[in-house]
């Protein structure tokens, strides 16, 4: 886990459910096959209604036509991000599209848990409602040590909530790495 990173923000609203993150018809692809799994990046956030895709204006595709990586590396959202199904394909799709972190006001618990235990993206929370403060395309810097998010060139800084109990799993890079570090399971298989 890098202590600080920056990237362009992609801004979404409230209740972004897992069908919007990766529509159900795409759940058939392998998550292992190096070519097939690229589809998860390609179709990431393709279920978001166009007028809400990239706020405030909307109508911004998260992944450009024909691409499998997004130019946006940080997702900004409102409350209850990742609600709906338990599909781990959702945080995986975000990772495949190149997302490093999601910063939302709150999360649905299965998405949050999947993001952490699978080590896909870091789910960060803020007290502030960031979709009202940040625009799609803004460059933001996330500093985990200082626990803050800075909007570059706009002189705005927001405090990130502490990760709490899951910090150790996030730092380890997922539940398996965490369990190995603590001796709960044995070393990596050959």
């Amino acid at each position: 886990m890098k202590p600080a990173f920056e990237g362009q923000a992609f801004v979404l609203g409230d209740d972004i459910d897992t069908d919007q993150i990766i529509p159900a018809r795409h759940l058939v692809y392998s998550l292992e096959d190096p070519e097939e799994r690229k589809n998860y990046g390609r179709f990431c956030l393709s279920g978001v209604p166009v007028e809400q895709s990239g706020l405030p204006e909307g109508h911004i595709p998260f992944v450009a036509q024909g691409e499998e990586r997004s130019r946006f590396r940080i997702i900004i959202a409102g409350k209850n991000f990742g609600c709906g199904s338990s599909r781990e394909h959702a945080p995986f799709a975000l990772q495949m599209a190149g997302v490093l972190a999601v910063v939302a006001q709150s999360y649905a618990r299965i998405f949050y848990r999947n993001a952490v235990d699978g080590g896909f993206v870091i789910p960060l929370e803020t007290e502030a409602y960031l979709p009202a403060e940040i625009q799609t395309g803004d460059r933001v810097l996330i500093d985990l040590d200082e626990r803050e998010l800075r909007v570059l060139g706009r002189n705005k800084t927001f405090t990130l909530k502490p990760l709490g109990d899951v910090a150790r799993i996030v730092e380890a890079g997922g539940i398996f790495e965490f369990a190995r570090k603590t001796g709960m399971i044995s070393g990596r298989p050959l």
Partner: protein
Amino acid sequence: MTITEKILAKHAGKKEVHAGETIWVDVDVLLTHDVCGPPTFAIFRREFGKDARVWDPQKVVIIPDHYIFTEDPYARRNLDILRQFAREQNLPHFYDAGTERYRGVCHIALAEEGFTLPGTVLFGTDSHTCTAGAFGLFATGIGNTDAAFILGTGKIWVKVPETMRFVFEGQFPPYVQAKDVILRILADIGTDGATYRAMEFTGEAIQQLSMEERMTLTNMAVEAGAKNGIIEPDDVTYEYLKNRARHRFEPEFSDHPARYFSIHRYRADELEPMVAEPHSPDRGTPAHRLRKVKLTRAYIGSCTGGKLADFLAAATVLQGNKVAIPTFAVPATVRTARKLKETRLDGRSVWDILESAGVQIGPPSCAACLGGPADTFGRLNGPEICISTTNRNFPGRMGSKESAVYLASPYTVAASAIRGAITDPRDVL
């Protein structure tokens, strides 16, 4: 302690646990299906090794149900991956598609097959795993990574949830179903109103519900963000499990008093038929206020609204009527489908009543509840306006992003199908 805390304490080997505490629990059953099974098995092999064995073959239940009746080659490949894993690992509880063992929607099949035992701990790679809480067990949905971890170790971490208690005093009116009850709760607390928490349903009106109706209630606990939904077991529970239960079980009950995050009291007789407007299950409003909404499609099915009780309710309304809009019905399980043919209302089978009313009946599976591949039965492939007994109406949930879904009870869906517009079932019952 609450029933949820007591079950978790027992499975963590502790006398007591408190809400907020992070604990490791022993898992009684791990459930998976065709969408999340293949990636779970891949992670299991990657992390535990090619020759690794699952922790306990008796505790792994694989019920394919999502993409069964499709020609999609990837979906068919995923079924083959399940077959291969079940064979390699010698798993006895695999209900393979295309065989006599095929059952249908996993949450309902799991109960029918007697895996939902009071006092136990169940994890499943599907958000609606919380359905099983109707039997007084701790049941919740997880992702593939957590499931792979359980497959190898039989354990997983849980943060003990705070409990919200929902008390229903008195009796529900005959036209109100469990679906109306949960839509009302969702309208009151929102889609994040119970995030991280347990929802415990209790009271005289709940005790009078059948197991299938109780399952509708706990099924949609996840729609409020809850970790689990739970109902204390009673004679109705034990009766359902008679001749079904796989093992002996030790039920747990909430202490009086126990510590609750909040207590919500309702008078059951004041509830009304509810409809959740697009595009969120918490946009519930009484059905009679939406009478002007014209529909192009009706759908009866899924783990939420595709059980025998749901079709019986729909048939009560549809009997002697014709649907005015294309109406699709998908029994949750093979057993449900068989019961539709065996169960009679005024001398005619439920199946016959549905068909005579013009309803198209498809084979048991999750089908269009979650859209799925383009050739899925009942899928909304364009700008349809659909009323459905399913659980979610997020944008594009049942197929096209241009479609709009209204969620309602089987009574309300059937009444609306007859009129082609949203209809309060009291208008036709």
